């Protein structure tokens, strides 16, 4: 019987060694879609490495059962989506919207939302340029956002099943990704387009905000109607329930962030935390099981905080991280240099804002979306971080840029300017297998700068 050992980050082979202690009953206990035949997912990282996720050989992972469960579930997602289709569920792709459309989709029975663009991690986990090269051959320039891997995945049909429906959001989303979505349409897919309004008009509230709210409501109604057309079901009570479930997920993640980022010793590594934050988008294609996993993670974190133990040194230097890294290894690397993430402004903060439950559902969804930091100004995006710097909680800021992603090109310089009171390291995430000594040296220098300040 496996019991959590003293918390630490361990390698893939360490996890394999630990996995020997995991009992059969523990392995069989956890399933997705409650299917005991193929729904078991509690496997060590080595399993997924054997199936091609080569970077796992170099990554370090949290050593708790909750994290084993988390990784098994996350790495199993591709199979899960195929299995969903095999058992008659509808698989719905949502692109470019960051967290709201899935709440609508989950209101329909047997409908599974997923984000094809999350495939951008695949080239890094596999240390492979296969998908990026195919996208390049299909006309996406080499210097485009790594989300171009999505185009190749749609073309190859081996990473997720053919979606029953595709919702594609354009407007105030990444320009590169908008182009990629159009290319996907050129492949013969038939996306249902909706538009995200331009940034909230902070200078002219409430009129600017109100107009955008009404516009978003009308867009969400279109999404709803298309789903009704697909499923033949039109039950708004189910949307209310779906919102409640989304809020449970959002509040759980908010609590995990608070517990982890405010503890005296980091109870969970940054890599697992980023994975948790991204799960907020759609629950990795089985939101019920994802909620169970998060509850287990919460219990683990609470125990660690209570015992005053964690996975990093107590004197690790607290920093904030802006924009997620496509390469998971970077998160490991930063911690290896003695840094600790205590605040994040990943683009998925969009899926963290609570949704009001006592007003009409579409309005609640629109308001939640418009309240989030990404749709606000750059100033708003960095506000929490500046507050953290001012109260001494944050000692440095790391910004990872995606070459080609328009929001990075537009905002990084502005952010650097606004964060002039604190050391800032801005790096372009290199292509798979591309973390060089030079990059390591820059992170080392950043760490030294903070220490000497």
């Amino acid at each position, binding site marked *: 019987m496996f019991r959590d050992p003293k918390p630490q980050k361990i390698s893939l082979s360490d996890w394999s060694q630990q*996995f020997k202690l995991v009992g059969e009953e523990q392995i069989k206990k956890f399933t997705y879609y409650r299917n005991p035949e193929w729904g*078991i997912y509690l496997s060590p990282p080595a399993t997924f490495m054997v199936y091609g996720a080569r970077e796992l050989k170099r990554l370090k992972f949290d050593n708790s059962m909750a994290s084993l469960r988390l990784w098994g579930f996350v790495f199993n997602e591709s199979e899960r989506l*195929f299995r969903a289709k095999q058992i008659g569920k509808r698989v719905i792709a949502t692109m470019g919207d960051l967290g709201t459309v899935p709440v609508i989709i989950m209101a329909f029975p047997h409908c599974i939302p997923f984000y094809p663009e999350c495939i951008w991690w695949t080239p890094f986990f596999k240390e492979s340029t296969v998908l990026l090269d195919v996208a390049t051959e299909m006309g996406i320039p080499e210097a485009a956002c790594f989300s171009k891997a999505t185009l190749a995945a749609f073309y*190859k049909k081996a990473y997720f099943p053919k979606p029953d429906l595709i919702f594609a959001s354009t407007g105030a989303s990444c320009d590169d990704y908008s182009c990629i979505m159009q290319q996907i349409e050129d492949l013969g897919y038939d996306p249902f387009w909706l538009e995200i309004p331009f940034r909230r008009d902070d200078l002219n509230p409430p009129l600017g905000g109100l107009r955008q709210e009404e516009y978003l409501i009308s867009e969400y109604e279109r999404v709803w109607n298309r789903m009704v057309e697909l499923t033949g079901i039109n039950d708004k009570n189910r949307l209310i329930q779906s919102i409640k479930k989304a809020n449970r997920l959002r509040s759980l993640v908010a609590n995990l962030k608070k517990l982890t980022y405010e503890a005296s010793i980091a109870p969970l590594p940054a890599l697992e935390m980023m994975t948790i934050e991204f799960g907020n988008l759609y629950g990795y294609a089985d939101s019920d099981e994802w909620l169970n996993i998060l509850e287990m993670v919460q219990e683990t974190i609470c125990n660690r905080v209570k015992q005053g133990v964690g996975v990093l040194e107590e004197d690790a230097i607290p920093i904030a991280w802006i924009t997620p890294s496509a390469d998971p290894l970077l998160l490991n690397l930063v911690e290896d240099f003695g840094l600790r993430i205590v605040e994040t402004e990943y683009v998925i903060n969009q899926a963290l804002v609570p949704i009001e439950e006592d007003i009409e559902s579409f309005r609640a969804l629109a308001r939640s979306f418009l309240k989030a930091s990404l749709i606000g100004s750059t100033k708003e995006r960095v506000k929490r971080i500046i507050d953290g710097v001012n109260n001494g909680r944050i000692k440095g800021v790391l910004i990872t840029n995606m070459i080609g992603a328009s929001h990075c090109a537009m905002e990084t310089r502005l952010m650097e300017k606004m964060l002039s009171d604190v050391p800032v390291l801005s790096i372009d995430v290199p292509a798979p297998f591309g973390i060089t000594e030079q990059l390591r040296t820059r992170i080392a220098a950043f760490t030294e700068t903070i220490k000497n300040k």
Partner: protein
Amino acid sequence: MSLMVDKKYEILNPRERFGLLVIDEKPDRCNIIPLITSHAAAVTGISLKDYYTNGTAMAKAQIAAIEEYGHDAISIFSEVGIIAEAMGSEFIYPDDDLPVLKKPALTGLKQTMDCLRQPDPKKDGRLPVYLEAIDYAYSAVGDKIPILAYVPAPFTTGMMLSDPNQFLLDTIKNPQRVKKIIEISLNAAIEFCYEIINAGGLPILVDPLASGSVISPKAFRDFALPGEQGLINFLHRYDFDVILHICGDTTPLLDSLILTGADLISLDRVDLNLAIQKLAKKIRIIGNFDTTKIGFGSTDEIAKEVKEMVRIGIKAEKGYIASTGCEVPIRTPVENVKTFISAAKEVGWYWG
């Protein structure tokens, strides 16, 4: 312009193709994995001794074979004595042939089980050679090509630990001794699998000496099956889909093969139609082109018969891998293997 694919050309790489197979999805075409093992040495022109004593050489030869033929997996393997050797059996290494059993670990009347050592896969015998080969191949091409590592099952290893004739006699005269040898061999195989997995290889079980040509169905159930089941259970803990290969005529064993728990079964001298009828609803089928024919047949004959085989094979409900019934003979003409693969590629399509 629509880029939606409707033509018969390869969209997936071997890794993607194999990945779909093991989740019960049909890939663009069937996986084509003839058992190209030591034949890879002949493709690259290195000596067999170099191939099976030098992991990097083995991996490079396998990669060169893939480049030459375009099949769908790397096969890390030379011969079935590898675990027995690490446990104490002695082998001769001819320069241009596969290792030959010289002295089994259990030789003579006084030999007891104590003389069998539990091998350390990182140190003993040529197990490190295999691990080095897996590591090299995985680093070089593991993102695009599955790395299959063949592991002798306990019954076969047991036979290589003893005088083979005596071992077979003991299945009748001294079954407890045979069972003990198999139990010890199982532990050794599990440790080896464990290291193979950590290196990036997918263990495949081979139990050629448990063939219906060698033992009876009862002996299979009593002795070979428990060892296979033990190893398969271990690999299922990791959620791997397990391939089991048994050489020879397994027609009398077909019903028992389900009991092994294997997810893919690699067959040799069996009527493919019969195998599909009996197994294909529960197990994926691999096989089973006559290795004599690929070694010595004409290319016309090979092309015709491979197409017939693949047309039957792709009807298997849970999936099919076009393969040879056993290892491609070492000195098989390159043209013959190319013919096998191009014929399979011509008719093995699921998409389009």
